[in-house]
């Protein structure tokens, strides 16, 4: 038996014994069943708490991170096996967070050993919840024009300014922020990537209500917020070099693009599809085709594009594994995936007809599909607009002049 087969057997047995029954319903609860962790987190059940604790102990909340930083130290193949075995029993993910998706990868790439040792384990255990402070009211697509000021006050940094579109800032404990540490430098230089404890005077948040009626984002204000130079001995508050935070930011943006583009695929394989809804709402003719032939044509085209897109994600992954491909393709996936997701939701709304137009009440679960539809409109804005992605493709892949 190969090592991997042995590992699979071990994982299977461990999951069987340790994954609580209630946690074996992945996908059923949608966003509501996610465990985000953090100081203010209230577990929805004892099972959710136990599951997180057990997985964190194994390091399997972040299986690919090194063991010394709270991870599982697993190889790519082993991670794949773990995920497959979890899927097999429909085990929920024990923990999701911006710390896992964003800060972790940034620290692993740009952080010092001290920073990793200090910050990563609490993320892995779900003890500290992070959020991201990038955009500003006047720096949207043009992120590098950000103004949030960070002054060197000898033993500490002093931050003044405002961030916007900070996801769940009102529930987070810490925030990683892009700040301007050199006001005289040109746009892309003079920016630093700094880690800030939100539990202090001078940091406040205000939820932003979206057109979907939900408030997943906040404005975050810094008024004379202080940050020690070192959060602990040898643990600098700045990640990477001073004034070179743009490199860290760019790395994370690419990372985020891939995630959001991939998010498209999650909905592509989600339980409901435009074709199914339409079949149910508009009926089929004798030949088994939708009565509404116009809608049918649009859905079929979206299904063609959606399937081919999923294969493209597969291909890009395989190319990356084989050391081929170009990083800029993450812009392509982000662009195409989010535009496709918007199309699919439009079609689901078309298929659902007036039934799905009820904003409140039991029948639609308070307009679940409609609110989801409205939420998708941000997909092509957040994490770099579609226009920015097209600019990147034109410049980095097609090498068009002046792009």
């Amino acid at each position, binding site marked *: 038996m190969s090592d991997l087969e042995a590992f699979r057997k071990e994982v299977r047995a461990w999951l069987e014994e340790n994954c609580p029954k209630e946690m074996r319903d992945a996908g059923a609860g949608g966003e509501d069943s996610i465990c985000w962790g953090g100081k203010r987190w209230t577990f929805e059940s004892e099972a959710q708490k136990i599951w997180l604790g057990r997985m964190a102990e194994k390091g399997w909340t972040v299986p690919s991170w090194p063991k010394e930083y709270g991870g599982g130290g697993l190889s790519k193949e082993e991670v794949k096996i773990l995920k497959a075995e979890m899927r097999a029993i429909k085990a929920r993910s024990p923990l999701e967070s911006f710390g896992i998706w964003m800060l972790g990868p940034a620290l692993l790439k740009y952080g010092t050993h001290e920073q990793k040792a200090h910050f990563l384990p609490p993320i892995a255990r779900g003890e500290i919840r992070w959020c991201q402070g990038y955009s500003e009211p006047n720096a949207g697509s043009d992120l590098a024009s950000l103004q949030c000021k960070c002054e060197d006050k000898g033993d500490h940094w002093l931050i003044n300014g405002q961030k*916007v579109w900070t996801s769940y800032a009102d529930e987070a404990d810490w925030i990683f922020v892009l700040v301007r540490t050199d006001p005289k430098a040109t746009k892309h230089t003079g920016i630093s990537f700094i880690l800030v404890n939100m539990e202090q005077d001078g940091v406040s948040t205000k939820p932003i209500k979206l057109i979907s009626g939900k408030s997943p984002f906040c404005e975050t204000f810094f008024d004379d917020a202080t940050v020690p130079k070192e959060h602990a001995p040898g643990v600098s508050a700045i990640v990477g070099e001073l004034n070179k935070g743009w490199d860290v930011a760019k790395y994370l943006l690419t990372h985020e693009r891939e995630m959001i583009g991939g998010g498209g695929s999650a909905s592509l394989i989600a339980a409901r599809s435009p074709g199914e809804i339409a079949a149910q709402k508009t009926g089929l003719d004798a030949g088994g085709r939708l009565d509404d032939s116009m809608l049918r044509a649009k859905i079929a085209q979206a299904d063609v594009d959606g399937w081919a897109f999923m294969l493209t994600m597969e291909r890009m992954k395989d190319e990356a594994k084989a050391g081929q491909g170009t990083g800029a393709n993450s812009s392509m996936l982000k662009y195409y995936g989010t535009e496709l997701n918007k199309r699919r939701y439009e079609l689901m709304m078309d298929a659902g007809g007036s039934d799905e137009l009820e904003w409140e009440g039991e029948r639609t679960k308070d307009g679940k599909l409609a609110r989801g539809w409205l939420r998708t409109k941000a997909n092509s*804005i957040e994490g770099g607009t579609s226009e920015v992605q097209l600019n990147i493709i034109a410049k980095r892949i097609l090498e068009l002049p002046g792009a």
Partner: protein
Amino acid sequence: MPLILNEEQEMLRDSARGFLDEKAPVAALRKLRDANDPDGFSRDLWKEMAEMGWAGIIVDEGYGGSGFGFVGAGVLAEEMGRTLTASPYLSSSILAATALKKLGNDAQRQENLPKIAAGELLYALAVDEGAKHGPAKTAMAAEKHGNGFKLSGDKTFVADGHVADKIIVAARTAGSPGERKGLTLFLVDSKSNGIEVERTQMVDSRNAARIKFDGVEATGDDILGEVDGGFGALEGVLNAGRAGLAAEMSGASQAAFKMTVDYLKERKQFGTEIGTFQALQHRAAHLYSEIEIAKSAVLKALQELDDNYGIAGAVCSLAKAKVGEVAKLASQEAVQMHGGIGMTDEYDIGFYMKRIRVAQEMFGDPAFHADRIAQLRGY
């Protein structure tokens, strides 16, 4: 007839624009929504509108209306679309007024048209029974019962059904669902025994209702038009509603587009107004073209309703189909070009997107109407 507004219609438009900008901007709809207003519109505003002659815009002067015809009605709808004015205008002043004017007998007209024109009673049209529009699919039974009928069945997506005093309802006196023959229209009191109204708050912060009819009694006097021959009559009324909705969506598209172009001129990124970016310029220019083309279809539909009511169905479908697609594009481009701010509830653009989605679905979405045109053209 030239495909432009005449002087009188232009004056109507200008005065409506002034009035609505002042009395019913988007902020008014927002207020109604935030207050969770039980009507979803302002009865005071509706009274003022009625006093200006809007409630009876297509009602003849003899019945207290202002006798403007459908072009005039569309002019008002378009202006209300610009500011997203919530009111029972579509249901009472276009749908019910058309039904009574075109199908009512003398007594029915005398009884109802003055009340419509005065804004005194509210009306609603109950057609749909499923998620997608399709009058021929009507299943609601109107069974013979003595000298009259008993109506039983469920209606959905009845605009303003939650406040209607009277309901025009399509029911089946013969034939089976899917057949055009056998439909009859009834005008019943919403307080009748056996009627149960459930208010439904829609995506656009406006209100509709699901209405259950359980053996509701109707007499021969309650019949609008002919027994069993109601399909064609209903289509006429729906055509007026479709053209009215198209006009409203056209107004909403124009307003959303104007907000977007203004934003392109003002918002700076990368050291310049984002309106200088050619990719956005071309998309804006394309959208401008689409909006202009949609406007033509709307005006023609309204003119045809005035001039050739009986055969206006095709061009009303054209207007509803074309404007539906264009309005959707206008709201999508508006949000995208506004970026993050367009996604916030605080900004008005989302209200346009929501209203357009509902108006687009009502009385047939673009697919429904494109299908009608295809059928008429023999393919």
